[in-house]
């Protein structure tokens, strides 16, 4: 043992011990650490990795090579996965021709790719996460309360049953008919373009769910219209057009018919 104790004071001894210690902890960690977590982590980094690739092909030209933003698009640092899932999932992103507002279109990425993009953007800075099904599903929503909330917070732009409406300079609030509940939730969470956002601090999760429940009731394929044709649900303008074209139009047709079928004796 003399040899060993003699070398204890060697200047490199500390380093050697450190290396041994590191190797030991590493080995121990490898032996005892939960296997799934490691896999998830590597999957996460893989998704981020894939997302980054997709991003540099499809998005970087506008949003900058690392999401810092350019002339053509805003910075994406901190917008969160929810914003990406909404923007790409509703087909808005990647944006195409410039216009007053980036419109909804057919999504060009599938959900797996969207998740990868979202993972990458989320890795750039903390932001709202993609909501869970439990959060956005209309099941268990208080529909009447949702209606009240919708009329207070959304109807001024989207119309009282979500048929949409105009904003200034060619911008518009789109119809909410057929919008996926998840995207409804994310829109409220992130406030795309000219829409204000409704974070959980001002509109708790339960209220978002209520709104989604209300829309599912009044503005979806399964909502009924007790009075007959809805005429677009746009109110008096479409009603007026209908009254003139079909109401008065029919009246005049009938009048012409009646006047033409006069008693024959005096027809000149």
């Amino acid at each position, binding site marked *: 043992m003399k040899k060993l104790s003699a070398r204890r004071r060697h200047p490199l001894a500390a380093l050697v011990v450190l290396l041994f210690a590191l190797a030991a902890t590493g080995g121990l960690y490898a032996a005892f650490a939960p296997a799934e977590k490691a896999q998830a982590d590597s999957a996460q980094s893989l998704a981020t990795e894939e997302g980054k690739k997709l991003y540099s092909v499809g998005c970087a030209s506008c949003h900058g090579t690392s999401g810092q933003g350019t002339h053509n698009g805003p910075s994406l640092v901190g917008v969160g996965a929810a914003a990406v899932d909404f923007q790409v999932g509703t087909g808005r992103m990647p944006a195409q021709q410039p216009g007053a507002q980036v419109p909804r279109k057919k999504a060009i990425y599938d959900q797996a790719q969207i998740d990868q993009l979202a993972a990458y953007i989320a890795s750039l800075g903390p932001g709202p996460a993609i909501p869970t099904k439990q959060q956005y599903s209309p099941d268990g929503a208080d529909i009447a309360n949702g*209606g009240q909330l919708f*009329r207070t917070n959304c109807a001024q732009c989207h119309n009282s049953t979500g048929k949409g409406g105009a904003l200034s300079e060619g911008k518009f609030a789109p119809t909410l008919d057929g919008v996926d509940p998840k995207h409804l939730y994310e829109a409220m969470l992130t406030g795309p373009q000219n829409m204000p956002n409704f974070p959980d601090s001002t509109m708790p999760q339960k209220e978002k769910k209520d709104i989604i429940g209300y829309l599912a009731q009044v503005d979806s394929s399964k909502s009924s219209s007790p009075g*007959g044709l809805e005429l677009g649900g746009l109110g*008096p303008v479409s009603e007026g057009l*209908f009254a003139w074209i079909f109401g*008065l139009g029919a009246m005049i047709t*009938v009048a012409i018919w*009646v*006047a033409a079928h006069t008693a024959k004796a005096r027809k000149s």
Partner: protein
Amino acid sequence: MSTASHEATDATARRGKAPAGERLADWADGRLGIYGLAKANMRKIFPDHWSFMLGEVSLYSFVIIILTGVYLTLFFHPSMQEVVYNGPYVPLQGIRMSEAFESTMHISFEVRGGLLIRQIHHWAALVFVAAMLVHMMRVFFTGAFRKPREVNWVFGFLLLVLGMFTGFTGYSLPDDLLSGTGVRFMEGAILSVPIVGTYLQMFLFGGEFPGHDFVSRFYTIHILLLPGIMAALLVGHLILVFYHKHTQWAGPGRTNKNVVGMPLLPVYMAKAGGFFFLVFGVIAACAAIATINPIWAFGPYRPDQVSTGAQPDWYMGFSEGLIRVMPGWEINLWGHTLQLGVFIPLIIFPLVLVTIAVWPFIEAWVTGDDREHHILDRPRNRPVRTGFGAAWISWYLILLVGGGNDLWATHFHLSINAITWTVRIGFFAIPALTFVITKRICLGLQRRDRDKVLHGRETGIIKRLPHGEFIEVHEPLPQDQMHTLTAHDQPEPLELGPDVDENGVRRKVDRKTKLRAKLSRSMYGEGAQIPKPTAAEHAEITSGHGHH
């Protein structure tokens, strides 16, 4: 019917006891003198033309509105009392609302036939005002407003205005989010009136908006005051139509002294009765097919809520247009704000309507025409009047477009600002343009009439003459058409006479006379009408060289 009663007296003498119906008629006649009345009136003649039936469409829709309205009053509670909804419509359960709204929900979802009746009532109202407007324009373009029918024109015009306000008050009754926004807007318009605005507002609403009174007040106005006045005017209107007898189109045998058509009884009455059911059928079909004013979708009114796409019914749409395109100007004077952005539209709103209403009187003043007119004008023969009417319609329409600017924007992918600016410019430019174009078209049509009379109708048959020339054979018009095309008179423009009198002294012509002469020249002077062919011209052409 009453004829029967008279004949019955003779018949009874001959055949003993008459059937019960006849005896009843006889009994009534003995007390009410129906026969005399009927005898005088039932041979009244009513000419046939589809455009003469537009008034009837208004009449029948009015009747339908009254009938369905009575049904609605049985269930509607004109109260602003707050209640909690417990009815079958799930999205509103547990929501606080006024009794007015709740009872409308009740009518829509629980009263048997309630929703259908509500929809018939509302569709009939839209059609009613539309029919009135078209009826008015028919009267306008044909010159049916001329002496002796000016008073009836005014009656009719008042009916139109009252119809609009009856509609507006009715639309506001359910106290829903859409109409409440409209009432709020009206309140704002009243408030914008200088000095008295606030007092007026307080008087009407009985306190701060919305207060507790407005629904019950609107209710009285909507079901009692306005319909009462309208019913009275309507009866007066019809009595006058009856008394003046209906106008007719020019034609052989039709003069200013007769009316050619069907006797009121039985032919016209039978047709009118049938027509009532057709009108009712069309409106009922609309109501059965399409939703109108789905208040359940709008929700109850709350001052802190508003929906986009908030418009009034179409007949108030032009006022909405005025307010939407008006720049939001305001003036601050000694601590008071004058809201020109709201007040100016409030002033223009009645002016738009009055503009068309005063035309008959302006025309009468300019022409100085004091004769009675029972033969209608063909619109083309009065290019200035027709141009004016068309310009007015275009003015009205451009304002309607302004009133729906948001929907045109979303549906045609336009910028709402661009539409607003188009309407602002169009407000001034389009009527002028329409006037010029319409007048030109009228003159063109007059020229064609002249050609037709002089050269006959083009037959489309091409003939080759012996020396090789091709000509189209023209066929002389039948005599009655010839008559119709030349029956109108062509007034001479008013002449001021020479500037100086026989003594060489300058004559004094006051400004009013000068204006009148100027207007008269624009209506009847050169370039405002094409001289119709004279008999001599016609004779000359038809005698010698035949076709041209």
